[in-house]
Every structure is written in structure tokens, then in C-alpha cells.
């Protein structure tokens, strides 16, 4: 899966295409999430924050993100570094999509989290 957070078709936008071409040439199955193109809202709302340990089913608008994240075996992030970090668009993708029961599982009554993505083997982060 490739996640892209670049506004507009500027010169730098050639890069996701070449990353994509490379993956396809290698015979990988590729799903692309273009955060700007789909108008993703990176701001975690109050409702989502209060429900941050709730079920992913409570966020139906993010279902395709959850599916793609749990489907992929390799994650490719394509973004410009702004102010020493990820663009807000991409940071918000982590804030909102990498939630309990999707990217990790919070054991009941325990603090800390365990990775639930396929390759992690369930080890503590």
C-alpha cells in the first residue's frame, strides 16, 4: 500500500508515480491512498477522541483506510518533510486511522499497547 500526502501536481509528485511503477514492475499488488486527492480530514474530532478506545465500526467513513492498512504487507509513505516532520495531512492519518483494534490492541485493564499488524508477531512495542 502506498500513502501519498502531497498537495497539487508539482514536480515532487513525480516521485509517488515512480515508486508506484517500481512496485508494479516487481509484480506487487498495490493499493494507493492519495490523501489530498480524496480530501482526507486529518483533524481528530471531539467525538473520535472521546471514543478513541471504541470500535473501528464507529468510524464508517474510514473503513477503506482500515481495510487497506490491515491488508498490506508493506507500507510505503510518500511525503515531503515540512518543518522537520510529516505534513499535517499525513500526521492526521496516523492520529485517526491507526486506532485501537486496527493498528494495535489495548489489553483490557492494562496500559501500553500491543501491535496487531500481521508481521509484528504480537510483540510489545
Amino acid at each position, binding site marked *: 500500500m502506498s500513502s501519498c500526502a502531497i498537495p*497539487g501536481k508539482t514536480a515532487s509528485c513525480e516521485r509517488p508515480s515512480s515508486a508506484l511503477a517500481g512496485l508494479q514492475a516487481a509484480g506487487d499488488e498495490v493499493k494507493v491512498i492519495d490523501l489530498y486527492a480524496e480530501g482526507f480530514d*486529518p483533524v*481528530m474530532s471531539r467525538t473520535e477522541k472521546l471514543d478513541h478506545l471504541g470500535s473501528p465500526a464507529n468510524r464508517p467513513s474510514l473503513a477503506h483506510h482500515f481495510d487497506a492498512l490491515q491488508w498490506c504487507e508493506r507500507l510505503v509513505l510518500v511525503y515531503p518533510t515540512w*518543518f522537520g*516532520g510529516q*505534513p*499535517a495531512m499525513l500526521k492526521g492519518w496516523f492520529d485517526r486511522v*491507526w486506532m485501537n483494534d486496527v493498528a494495535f490492541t489495548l489489553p483490557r485493564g492494562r*496500559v501500553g499497547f500491543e501491535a496487531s499488524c500481521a508481521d509484528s508477531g504480537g510483540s510489545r*512495542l
Partner: protein
Amino acid sequence: MKCLVVFAHPDQDSFGAALRDSVCAGLEERNHDVTLIDLYADGFDPVMDADTHRRYLEVASDHPDPLVARYIDLLREAEALVFVYPTWWAGLPAILKGWLDRVFLPGVAFRLGRHNKVRPNLRQVRRLIVVTTTGSPRYQTFLLTNAGKRTIMRTVRLVCSRRCRTTYLALDRLDSRTALERTDFLHEARIKVATI
């Protein structure tokens, strides 16, 4: 000192909101001039759009978004910057990262010198303070390299006064803290921030 407090939490009943009030009260007790920016309450959109991105080098002089133009004016006035936010994924909430992306523009926060080298343009900022909370224990945030702390203490620090002093206050393991521990941290933040 003219203090700009930037607050980023979606819930007005949260511990983060209590921290914001404590920090502002502490500063006002010492007669500092406090201006609060509440990013969620302002409905700030942290996404830099394609048009602004294309005009990035000159957009500050005539910014199309009046809210960003107001933030630019406030930033130019500030002598101390205080950030109050919850640490999410070892970093800044998107709304705060986007505030840096969209407001810390060339001609505002920095100038581009020879060979496009970044030169500080917020030389009046002499104090930089972070007050935050984390769900993870302190060692875990450290091992995850604490991107939020780095972004502010290093990248933002780079465009401030060369003598700018920094303070980082964090309450870790927030979810398992007792009411007393939380109250203690509110008190600590109030005292420490006020003595800038």
C-alpha cells in the same frame, strides 16, 4: 513578556484544557501579557492546499486565509511561545503540526539566506515552552524518539532568538494517573511556566 499560548485539544472538558487554564493563570499572575490561540475552537484547517503550496515563498505577504493572517500577526508580536497539546503517536496532533506548516512561512518565521539557508526571523522569541501529556510511559516515548518534542525544541527553536531558552514539561501515563498526581502536575505547570 508577550506570551502566545497555542492550545490543541478537541475536548474542552479534558485534562489538556485544565492544563491550558493552569498555564494561562500562572502567566497572568506574573503580569505577563497572554494571548491564547485555541486551534480546535477556531476551527483551524491544518491542511496546506495546492495553491498556497505553489505560492509558498511569497504567500505570507498577502495570505488568502484571514485566520492564518491573524495568526501571522500574533506570531510576529510574541516574545514567548507556549504549546499545550496531547502527544499522539509520539508527535504533535495534526492540527498543531498544520499550524506550523501553514503559519511558520518564509518571511514570517524565517528568511532564506544564501544557498537557501534558513535564517531565523522570530528573533524576538526568547522563551519556548511545551506542556504536554502522553499515554505511554516516559521511556517508551523516548524510545519512539518523541517527534513532537523534537519538532518544537529543535525546528521551531531554530527560527527563534539565538538565546531562546526552552522548557519541556510532560505528564506520562496519563490514563493511569490518580487525581492527586494530575492536580500536582497542573500545579507544577502553573508554577514553572510562570517563572519564565
